[in-house]
Structure formats: C-alpha cells, structure tokens
C-alpha cells in the first residue's frame, strides 16, 4: 500500500451521514442540552411561581395558586421597581442610541486611523460588569473620585458629590454608567447598517439637489430604520433582564431609588431565598417584555424581514 496524503476515513459516522437520520444526528446533542438547561428549567420556573418555596424554611411548601401575584399588586417595592425599570431602560437606550449614532457616523467617514478608533470605542462592551461597576464606583467616589475632582476644578461643582448615595442623582448616575457600557453595541450595529447603504443613493440625492441634512433625513434614517429597530429591541431585552451593574453599584439603594424589577427578583431569591415570589416577579417581567416586544415588532414592522 502506498502511503499518500489520504484524509482519514470518516467511518461509521460517515456512513450514517448518508442516511436520512443525519439531520437528527446533527440536532440531537444540542437539543438534549437545550431541553435539559432551558426548556425544563423554564417550565419548572413558571411552576415555582405558583408554589411556596423558601429554602430558609423547608417546611413551607406546596401549591399556592396566584398568591404571589396577588401579593405583588399590594407590594409597593414592585411598583417602584417597575417605574424605575421603565425610566432606567428608556433613558439608557436613548442615551446609548444617541452616542452610538454619533460614533457610527464618525467611524463611517473612514478617515485614516478609523480601525484603531473602532477597536477603542468597542472596548467597554467587552468589559466585565464587575470591573466596570467598581471602576466607575472609584471614578465617582465621593472622597477620591477623579470626576468629582475635575468637576470641582473646572467650577461645575462647588464640592464633591456622593452620586450613588443621593436619591436624586443615583438613578441618573447608574444610567450614565450603563450608557458607557452599552453604547458601543449601538455603534457597532449602526455602523454595519450605515455601511449597507449603497453610496449611489447619496450621489443620486446630491445630483437631485439634496443637501447633507436632507440626505440624512431622506436616505440615512429610513435606510437605518430596521437596524435601529432591531438594535433597540435587543438592547431593551438585555437591559430589562440583567441587574448586574445595579447590583454592584447600588444594590438598589439608596432606599429603593435604583431598585428595578430584575434586581428585586434576584435579591428576593438570593437574599431571602423566597424562590416562589422571585419566580412570580420574573414571570411578570417576562410577560411585560413579551407584550412590549410583540407590540414593538408590530409597530416597527421589523418582523417582516
């Protein structure tokens, strides 16, 4: 036998791949995992919301129907958290979209050095929440924070401010940190959207006599609509669902000034081990999100693509 550079034979799997079972073979491993770590827990989680389950009191168990949901209606923290969630998500998304748009437009001009700037601008998105949170806690520290120092030096502030401890500024401060962390995501998607607009459209508009502002209004915005819509919905979902940054920065305080639904649900589970009520809170969150996503997709018509 000659020992040429033969690729190894693929054996039994190779033979199996020529049968009609191949497709199921490809899907099976991931389906098993998905059923195990997604489908089953999801259903189980919804079931828990109709049960009493407190790890601190093992004796307390059993079905309680809609008890947790009824308790929720009279829970003042729930309503504060709902209000804060709306504020937090709305302002963060608006801020991120604005910053992202400015960054994307600047990057899209392709001036020399754009590649390096693009990488630098993207860095915050990949920074871990834990590091981002403590880093900003340091920057905004009431005694040692460099931002306070700078603001006092240039005369905007008269004295150092405790941004996260003051109920009037705490939510705004966390929104600012979140915007820093999340705007690169918008920059990235909007840049891709801008690159997808055929340059001929702008040439045609220029020939037709449209100035930069008219071009922006008549070409850029309509062409970017679906990208913006998709980016906003993805961001809203992730903002509503992840309390990480707030957990690290404020823990919901002072008082309930920065308490949002996801954080409230997490703390109910993590601190009080009240799994039943925490599940009910997250189910409500999920339902609100689903309704919002459905209405949003309907209105923005991104579902057609």
């Amino acid at each position, binding site marked *: 036998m000659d020992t*040429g550079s033969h*690729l190894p034979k693929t054996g039994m799997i190779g033979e199996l791949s*020529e049968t*009609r079972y191949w497709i199921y073979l490809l899907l099976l491993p991931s389906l098993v995992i998905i059923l195990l770590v997604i489908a089953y827990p999801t259903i189980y989680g919804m079931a828990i919301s109709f049960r009493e389950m407190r790890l601190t009191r093992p004796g307390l168990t059993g079905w309680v129907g809609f008890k947790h949901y009824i308790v929720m209606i009279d829970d003042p923290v729930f309503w504060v958290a709902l209000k804060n969630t709306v504020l937090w998500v709305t302002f963060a998304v608006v801020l991120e979209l604005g910053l992202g748009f400015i960054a994307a437009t600047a990057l899209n001009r392709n001036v020399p050095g754009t590649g390096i700037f693009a990488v630098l601008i993207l860095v915050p998105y990949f920074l871990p929440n834990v590091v981002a949170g403590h880093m900003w806690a340091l920057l905004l520290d009431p005694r040692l924070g460099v931002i306070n120092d700078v603001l006092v030096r240039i005369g905007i502030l008269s004295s150092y401010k405790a941004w996260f401890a003051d109920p009037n500024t705490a939510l705004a401060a966390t929104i600012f940190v979140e915007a820093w962390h999340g705007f690169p995501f918008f920059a990235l998607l909007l840049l891709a959207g801008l690159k997808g607009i055929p340059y001929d459209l702008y040439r045609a508009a220029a020939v037709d006599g449209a100035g930069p502002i008219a071009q922006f209004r008549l070409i850029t915005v309509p062409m970017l609509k679906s990208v913006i819509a998709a980016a906003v919905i993805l961001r809203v979902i992730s903002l509503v669902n992840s309390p990480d940054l707030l957990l690290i920065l404020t823990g919901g305080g002072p008082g309930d000034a920065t308490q949002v639904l996801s954080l409230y649900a997490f703390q109910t589970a993590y601190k009080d081990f009240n799994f039943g009520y925490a599940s009910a809170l997250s189910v409500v969150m999920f339902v609100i999100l689903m309704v919002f996503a459905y209405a949003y997709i309907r209105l923005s018509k991104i579902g057609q693509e």
Partner: protein
Amino acid sequence: MATLSLQNVQKSYGGLQVLHGIDVELEDGGFLVLLGPSGCGKSTLLNLIAGLDDVSAGDIRIDGRSVIELAPKDRNIAMVFQSYALYPTMSVERNIGFGLEMRGVNNTERNAAVKQAADLLQISHLLDRRPANLSGGQRQRVAMGRAIVRNPDLFLFDEPLSNLDAKLRAEMRTEIKRLHGRLGTSVVYVTHDQIEAMTLGTKVAVMKGGYIQQFADPQTIYEKPANMFVAGFIGSPSMNFVTGTLTSDGRLARFEAPGVQVEAPMSSGEIFGAKAAVLGIRPEELKIADSAGSMLTGIIDVVEPTGPDTMVTIRIAEQPIVARLPPRFFGRVGEAIWLSADVRSVSLFDAETERRIPLGTE
C-alpha cells in the same frame, strides 16, 4: 461510459411537486441537454441524478443499475458546477486529485492522472496555484479537470458556462464539445442557453414547470417544436406567431388571418372547419416574394441592419413579426412588403392547447 435512464422520476418538497414524472433515455456516449427557463426543475433533476437530493418516486438507472439508494460518492459520476465549487483551501493540483484521494488512489497513479487531465485542458502550469488566483476561464478548466480525472461513468454539468463572458463562453463551449468527442463519456448538461443546447446536445429535453415539453434531437426540436413554448424558447430571434383560423378537408390544411394565407398538406386526414390556430414561422425562413402567391402581406415597421443580416419588423394587420433578411435590404419604413416561406418549415399550433398540429409528411 454508460447509459442513463430516468423512469417516472418525481420530486416534491412538502406539498409542492417540482418534477412530474420525468422519463428520459440517454444512449451510451450521448450528450443530454436539460434546457429550460429558471425554475423549470432542470437543476433539481440534475441533483437527483447526482444523488445530492432524494427522488420522491420513480427510478434512476445508470447502465441499467438502479442508483437511487446510492450516495453520490458511490454513483461513479462527476459534476461541474456553475460556481465551479473549487476547494478554496487547496491547490489546483489537490483540487483535481481530490476525488482520487478520497477513493484511496495512491500518489503515483494520482499524480499521473492529474497531470494527464491538466495537459488535456492546458492548465499544467497552474497546478501549484490556489483557486483564488485564477481567472474565470481557468477556474472553469480546473473544475472540468476535476471531473475528467476520475474517468466517471457520467458527467454532470450544471450551467457551467453562465458565469463567463460571451467570448470565453463560446470558446469553452467548443472545448466541451471537443472533450466529449475525445472522451466519449455520457453527459447530462443543464443550461438555459438554447445555443449551448443546439450545439452540444445529441438529445435535448426542453423543460417547463416540472414537465418535459419535448424530448428529441436538437434538429427536430428546432424544426418541429412540439408546442408553442418549445417553439418560442428555441431560436433567436424567436419564432413568429400569428393567430388565425385553420380549416382542413382532410388532405389540405388552409390557415387564414388578415394579410396571411398558408396552405399545407395534411397528413392525418383529419377534417375540421374554422378552428382557432396559431401559425409559427421562423424569422430566418422568411423571404421577400412577389405580391402574387405570397404568404404574408404587411407594412415595414422597423429596419435593423446587424451586418450579416437585416432584421425587419413587419406589421401584418396589427400582428408584428420579424424577418431575417439579407444585408442589402432597400425597403423603407411604411412601405408594403410581401413575404413567403417554404411550407415545410412552418408550424401550426392549436390555439387552445398550444400543441403542434402535424402537417405534411410528419
């Protein structure tokens, strides 16, 4: 070398049937062209022959042996793709030899076979290159080299020339014909280009909507199209159609429309009076005639000299037709013109079924 036989081949995707009972026989060493517009099912049929897709019903036999249960690798076929499908990570040499490599042919034999194929296609100097560094025509040759090196029973071509520019396409067409002549391997060739079909095929199957419209040799398809679709699809500029009425006394058929009068012998002996029919005449069959005894009378509408010919558009009582006339044509727009053609070259179709009505000696 092998014969190919398709027997009642059907294919559906879900509830959508894309091939309805295809029957085709190809002789050993023959060249079968599957011709049709996009979406007619020709590429699907080729994939079924290759085994890349499974038939829903029917049988495919290569050299009398049913292959529908065999994987593509076991059918001993080779295929050339529209996009060439050269493996981008491999050199030209390895691309051509890949099929032999997969079959465990040893290095010495493989190198010899690759070299022979490369010589035949004049690409020996390209063997070390990557596909990305080749021109379109060179890629085409490598793709063909990959097919011929294995010496398969059957070559399958899937629109192999449609990514080339016009000049290169004509060149490669000739090359394919030469190769087929030299190797003598049976070929199934998919195209939407009727010139490729006419020049290359020993058999042509014209397809539309998942049905074979006509299966015959190219000359028959050109001269005696089975229906109006085939008549219109083959030939450039395409066949002229004039609607009118047809009467037959059993021996002579008489077609009449405003400005048109054609008489032809009727072989079937069928007798009918005044039935809606369509007359088909190829532009290249039309000749200028005297006013007496002409077939068609009309007004010159547009005159387009192309060099070797002059294309003249003529209005015959509001029905436009095109005639391919000699280069020195002196007629002017708006003038009357009389035309006629050999009665053996005209076709008649039933206006309702669009099927051919047999004439003369058919």
